[in-house]
């Protein structure tokens, strides 16, 4: 997984690319979240448009990041969830945890 960051209108947009599947991905994402919070940035939009799939370990990474950000009083929302990932969210009911958007403008306006 690769992560690139682009801040806009007070929101950190993290673009994730590849597969979210544990191992080094967990450290990479947790470090990114910690860095954001250390800067006082707790509004985070995760762009998953270039993520092909997530396994259950990858779900854990997303849940962990979501919890950390929510506990800091901020929010983490998702953009561009593909059908396969959405299928996993539906089965695990994580669609009730993650607020997801198809349109970036709608996502930005929701913070």
């Amino acid at each position: 997984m690769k992560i690139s960051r682009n801040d806009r209108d007070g929101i950190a947009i993290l673009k994730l690319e590849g597969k979210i599947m544990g191992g080094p991905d967990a450290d990479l994402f947790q470090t990114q979240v910690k860095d954001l919070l250390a800067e006082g940035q707790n509004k985070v939009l995760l762009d998953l448009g270039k993520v092909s799939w997530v396994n259950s370990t990858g779900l854990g990474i997303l849940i962990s990041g979501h919890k950390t950000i929510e506990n800091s009083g901020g929010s983490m929302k998702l953009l561009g969830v593909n059908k396969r990932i959405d299928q996993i969210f539906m089965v695990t009911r994580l669609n009730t945890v993650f607020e997801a958007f198809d349109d970036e403008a709608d996502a930005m306006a929701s913070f």
Partner: protein
Amino acid sequence: MTDSKRTIKISIPSDLDWLGVIDKTVEGITEVMDFDEFDRDSVSICVIEAATNAIQHGHETSPDKPVDLEFIMEPEILTVTVLDHGKGFSPPDLEGEIGPAPDLTRTRGRGIFLMRSMMDEISFDFDEGTLIRLVKRKSPSESEEEASA
């Protein structure tokens, strides 16, 4: 696809980076078998889960041990076995209803729930390693479409 049974075998190193090869293999096989997109994704998700278990729990990330996969293609049924060569683990309880989704705040423990929810059958065998067997049947609409084609 013809009526005969066909088997494809692959082995991957015990490294999460190789899960993408499994994804592409499943994609190709389920396409040949005319599974619909939803079922193709379901099979991919579950085979990746089984292989993730093999790599992370079976082999504890020792890349020297391969993960062996076998895809048995029959006209209406795809059976996938995923074998690791580790010391095995306590078999999960696969009896009865699947039950509700795991606690939403948990960061682990969704793999078997996903496989049970998305496949038609799942079983484990423990011998010299752990073998996970996953079965997906084509839905009636998929079979009818193929028959009329």
